[in-house]
């Protein structure tokens, strides 16, 4: 079985977000980049499948050379080889197009339910559509039985048991697998694993980021005594007008 895991290269979850150049560019100063947390779940499940049923795992990232440490980390965790599509991931359609161009021939395409930078949550669905194969998200459990894939998917207020045939695309989230941490052997071997850099397909731009902004700053918190909780109710009614 051949598995393709698509990973994003995103600011660490604790990053403070700021913009520079007249709010046209993300400020990377002091920001640490990581494998997208949801993509980390996808990768962990792929490695488990490799260990239990035998598979090759290829990771793919659409990104500039800055992504390479992140890709090497995925190789250290256990992926066999990697593809980097050499481009700035500008929007979901662009990323999906690049993935679809390389995903043919894979039995399973796994990725996170969304990236934590642009949070679009649509790349898996677009890739499925482009390849004409099923796509399911967010997947919390995924098991393979022959060519059948049994999954548990979250919906608002609950979950569903879903079934589809290979090949398919899944957008993953916890608790599909435990995140894996690279060990020394993995880190050493990752250095020599193939990382193929390929040029992107060109497509017509359909969505353009014009500018960025931050939410309005919060006012100071109003403290209420624990001995007088009724005051909170009054204030929520008359002052905040939310009750």
């Amino acid at each position, binding site marked *: 079985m051949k598995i393709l895991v698509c990973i994003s290269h995103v600011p660490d979850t604790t990053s403070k977000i700021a913009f520079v150049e007249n709010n046209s560019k993300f400020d990377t100063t002091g920001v640490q980049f990581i494998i997208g947390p949801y993509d980390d779940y996808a990768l962990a499940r792929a490695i488990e499948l490799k260990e239990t049923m035998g598979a090759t795992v290829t990771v793919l990232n659409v990104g500039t050379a800055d992504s390479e440490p992140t890709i090497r980390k995925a190789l250290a965790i256990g992926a066999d080889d990697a593809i980097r599509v050499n481009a700035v991931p500008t929007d979901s359609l662009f990323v999906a197009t690049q993935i679809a161009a390389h995903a043919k021939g894979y039995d399973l395409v796994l990725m996170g339910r969304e990236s934590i930078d642009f949070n679009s949550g649509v790349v898996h669905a677009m890739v499925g559509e482009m390849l004409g194969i099923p796509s399911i998200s967010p997947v919390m459990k995924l098991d393979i039985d022959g060519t059948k894939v049994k999954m548990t998917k979250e919906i608002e207020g609950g979950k569903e048991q879903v079934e589809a045939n290979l090949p398919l695309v899944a957008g993953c989230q916890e608790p599909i697998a435990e995140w894996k941490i690279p060990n020394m052997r993995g880190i050493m071997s990752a250095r020599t694993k193939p990382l193929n850099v390929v040029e992107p397909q060109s497509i017509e731009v359909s*969505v353009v980021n014009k500018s960025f902004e931050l939410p309005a700053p919060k006012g100071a918190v109003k403290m209420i005594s624990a001995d007088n909780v009724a005051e909170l109710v009054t204030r929520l009614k008359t002052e905040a007008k939310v009750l």
Partner: protein
Amino acid sequence: MNILVFVETSEGKIRKTSLEAVAYAHAMGGTVTAIALGKADANELQSIGKYGATKVLHAVDSKLDQHVIQVYSSVLAKVMQDENADVLVLANSSLGTPVAAKVAIKTNASFASNVTELPNTSAGFVVKRSIYTGKAFANVELKNAKKIIAIRKNAAELKEVGGNAPVTNYNVSLNDADFNTKTLSSEKATGDILLPEAEIVVSGGRGMKGPEHWGIIENLAKALHAATGCSKPVSDMGWRPHHEHVGQTGVKVAPQLYIAVGISGAIQHLAGVNSSKCIVVINKDADAPFFKAADYGIVGDAFDVLPKLTEAVLAAK
């Protein structure tokens, strides 16, 4: 401008966020047609007109009762074509967003999800969308002739602007190949207020000490007609179901009122709640970081404060 709105149903009832999508489309100006797929309550369908739809289409076919994303996207792409729609508006949801993504490919439309405000059309067609899990916004221009917008809760005010609208049956021809996934079973909390749609959310964290103490969270939620949520460790430990987990890696909420009890306020939790209009924090540690993001705070023991607060809410009714 012809605007098509996909209204989602759950057990035949129209989702509130879908009515917000209708209100959003109405506020954009233009002609608003709504479409519902599968099982839907007839009275509810008519009442979509109240929020600004002039026409309601209903595709009746029991095969549509299952929410197969591929099937829904094929039908919606066809309706967009039949109705000559310039824009498709729908709710950002576990069904709406992936359906929209596929329709975007089928119709060559520009697509933005997580949209928080009405479009600005003074120069091009620009929508504001939430990014970095609520920590920032991007203004994005949708370049293509056809556009698809998936809106977040509160992107439009839900107010009545019209009367009932006529409901017409829409004939679908379904393609067998689209039924490429099968729903075997589903488990759903019944009668609960859905967390992503709730106006008030009461969330508990690790400070609640264990699932056996959730009764006092539920009592307050009941008194406020609120949904319940939790922090990540709480769902990780299995105290509460995963779909209640709020934050960066969980559900993003945008209620009028978010009450956080025994939650420290880690940046990943805040990321999922910072779009709330008003935040109340109850924590026994006066230095808990959550107080910095709160509008109102009470330093106190949850086990002491919550029952009193529930009583005060009931007394004020």
